[in-house]
């Protein structure tokens, strides 16, 4: 009986706090994406003609996210009938956009004008794996190109 009570409390807390956090995160993501629209992120492997002579620097951004308990619960049900797990989809989408934004922030600090060969990597952080609750790390990395070769960028260490 106590266990059931704890479970229900956890689901309600997950539902409430998860929804609030998600909505807040989405609005912050879209406003920051608008601010960073100037800095292009491309997946091409060769620098374009406009950047024949430039300084390169490796930039990366990462984030570790975890699902809330409500989503775990819903996903558990969905696992029986199959289909899209929208609860997890939105989580990973948010995390990936956050990682791109952090990569762009890093590039802007170095005075870059473009990021090429952007790549993603996703890995599972096994901290709470035994409970079936996953935390996922998403890493975005790429090469930042800065045009002003005369002034070397300040290394971000």
């Amino acid at each position, binding site marked *: 009986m106590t266990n059931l009570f704890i479970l229900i409390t*956890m689901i309600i*807390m*997950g539902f409430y*706090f*998860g929804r609030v*956090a*998600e909505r807040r*995160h989405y609005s912050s993501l879209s406003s920051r994406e608008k601010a960073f629209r100037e800095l292009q992120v491309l997946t091409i*492997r*060769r*620098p374009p003609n406009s*950047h*024949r*002579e*430039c*300084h*390169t*620097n*490796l930039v*990366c951004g*990462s*984030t*570790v*996210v*975890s*699902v*809330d*308990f*409500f*989503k775990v619960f819903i996903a558990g049900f969905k696992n029986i009938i199959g289909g899209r797990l929208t609860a997890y989809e939105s*989580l990973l989408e948010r*995390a990936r956009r*956050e990682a791109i934004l952090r990569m762009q922030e890093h590039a802007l600090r170095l005075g870059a004008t473009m990021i*090429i*060969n952007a*790549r993603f*990597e996703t*890995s*599972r*952080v*096994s*901290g*709470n*794996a*035994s*409970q079936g*609750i996953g*935390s996922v*790390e998403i*890493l975005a*990395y*790429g*090469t930042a*190109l800065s045009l002003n*070769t005369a002034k070397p960028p300040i290394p971000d*260490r």
Partner: protein
Amino acid sequence: MLISNIDVIPGKNIVQHIGLVQGSTVRAKHVGKDILAGLRNIVGGELSAYTELLQESRQSATDRMIAQAQDLGANAIINIRFSTAAIAAGASEILAYGTAVIID
């Protein structure tokens, strides 16, 4: 040291390829942070303790890779890749590898 994850350094010629360089680190985190992260799993959201931990580890893996390239006399690393593996509960290995080259 110029580092990039593309095959060329724009505007520079590669004089010599030195070979593969790599740097890796295995990190575990603090028990206290782990408990906090466990609580975070109920409400969801970002686990900033883990984010920081993995960023620091990635930085030190990159630094080791750069140190290795400097030992070999390289002045740039191209085609860098990152890889992460969770090897045990709460510990992960971060690997950075690339090709050390000499540019003019």
